[in-house]
């Protein structure tokens, strides 16, 4: 009774769900994660793209990339391993063939990209900044499937900082650094990219994993190792978001195994200003819509007028 009456009265208006990440205003904090939503068109028959907070593209590179041999995807308990190998059409074809489709919609487009060398990161950033319809850049320094040295950027704070500084200099767009979870201390990486000029961090990318076919005694992925995603990794992702929230001031985009609104709320309460939904798109193409609705319902049910009040609201006082 008494706790009920302490609550503020239910708001008359719909709660505010808009958030701003690095100057980019989003209708709501729910984006789709890179590599899990194609270039935007693939899921357009199933959901209204206008309702998304933002669309993050498949990881792009200067040159088109064929990716790895198959099998590229296998299922694991409550997760999946992928070793797509960053297959993509290349930035030029993206701008020419893919961007016009998503530009039709009222949704910010965040271009996820990577380079095989430091210089390529700069060049890609410049190219993407020049085209019409890209609203922010997400720098993938963390893909575990590139063998050309890309991995180094994601796990070494100095290398990560050098990539982000260069990208920062090469674009006027907001720069989001996407962090790898395959590190001892994610806060060191977050601080490094913060100092190097990133406007936001997104985390986590996939955990490196592996599975073996015991009949053939061969790896189940042609690439041997791959990236683990899905609900299995969510506890690790939430922990890292919480750690980073306690270490840097940058806005955080939380990613990893988000399937439902409650999952998204875990990340937001832990410290994320926005979230990305990845593997869930495959399982349930309407997951993002359900999450957006679920967040709004949570705000109403809990008498919260603005979703920003939830960000970093974790209460760690012992309860007894």
């Amino acid at each position, binding site marked *: 009774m008494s706790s009920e009456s302490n609550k503020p009265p239910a708001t008359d208006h719909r709660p505010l769900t808009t958030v701003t990440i690095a100057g980019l205003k989003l209708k709501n904090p729910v984006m789709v994660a890179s590599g899990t939503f194609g270039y935007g068109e693939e899921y357009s028959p199933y959901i209204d793209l206008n309702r998304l907070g933002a669309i993050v593209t498949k990881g792009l590179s200067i040159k088109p990339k064929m990716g790895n041999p198959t099998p590229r*995807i296998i299922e694991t308990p409550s*997760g999946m391993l992928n070793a797509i190998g960053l297959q993509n059409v290349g930035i030029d074809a993206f701008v020419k063939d893919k961007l016009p489709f998503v530009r039709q919609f009222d949704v910010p487009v965040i271009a996820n990209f990577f380079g095989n060398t430091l210089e390529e990161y700069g060049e890609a950033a410049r190219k993407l900044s020049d085209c019409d319809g890209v609203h922010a850049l997400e720098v993938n320094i963390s893909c575990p499937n590139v063998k050309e040295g890309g991995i180094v950027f994601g796990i070494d704070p100095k290398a990560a900082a050098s990539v982000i500084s260069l990208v920062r200099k090469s674009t006027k767009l907001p720069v989001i650094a996407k962090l790898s979870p395959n590190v001892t201390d994610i806060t060191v990486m977050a601080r490094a990219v913060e100092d190097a000029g990133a406007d936001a961090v997104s985390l986590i990318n996939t955990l490196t994993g592996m599975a073996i076919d015991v009949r053939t005694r061969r790896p189940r992925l042609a690439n041997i190792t791959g990236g683990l995603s899905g609900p299995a990794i969510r506890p690790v992702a939430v922990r890292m978001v919480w750690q980073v929230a306690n270490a840097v001031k940058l806005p955080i985009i939380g990613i990893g195994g988000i399937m439902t609104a409650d999952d998204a709320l875990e990340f937001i309460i832990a410290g994320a200003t926005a979230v990305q939904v990845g593997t869930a798109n495959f399982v349930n193409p309407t997951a993002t819509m359900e999450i957006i609705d679920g967040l709004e319902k949570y705000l109403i049910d809990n008498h919260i007028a603005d979703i920003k009040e939830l960000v970093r609201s974790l209460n760690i006082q012992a309860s007894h």
Partner: protein
Amino acid sequence: MYQVKSRVIKNEEVAEGYFRLSLECPEVAEKAGPGQFVMLRVGNSYDPLLRRPFSIHRINKWSGIEILYKVIGKGTGMMAHIKAGEGASVIGSLGNGFSFTEELGEALVVGGGIGAAPLLALAEKLTGKGIGEERKVIVFLGGKSKEDILCVEEFKEIGAEVQIATDDGSLGHKGFVTELLERYLGQPQGTAPTRIFSCGPHLMSKRVAEIAKKYNTPCQVSLEAHMACGVGACLGCVIKVKGSGVRGQF
């Protein structure tokens, strides 16, 4: 393409380890064609996590579709527990499916084991006939044993001729189903345009392709691809994508 919460009409074991699932999903049914597939999900467990692909076994235009499936692992094991009235999430119809023209005079339909599943919808369309034309449909069914020979009655009912082969000889010809196909093609042929359609295990498909090379274009559906999304979004299966549909290995 739609994602629908469909209602289970029936889910019955039609042979040891094989189930037929009837789903109410008029939107999907309306656009569905033989050789296409759906991505299915039942329950809310994350293990298994991914949807499972199933061929459209039968299309009931105004109400829904049927799936014929074999229980082999966790996903199909859970499907076997679904009861009438419960929900199942369906994405479909996906893939380009089988194609043929009105002129087609003779269809040789080859199925191995659960590969028979998509062939019933195909045979129904094939025997539906062209504009006033007579069309011959022969269905060749193969399997390990007689339990693995599916839908014989259903194929016969719609007017198809059925030839059977089993590895152990427990039903029909003892040997491979492709031997029946070869025997048939070895006989003197008419002039009607003929086409081979097949669906089954990898080795069978390979053999069909070899045989077909001499005679015609084969058209194959593989049930062995690992798919995460089924719609071309994950790039997990290296398949040609047309529009937003996945082409499968046709």
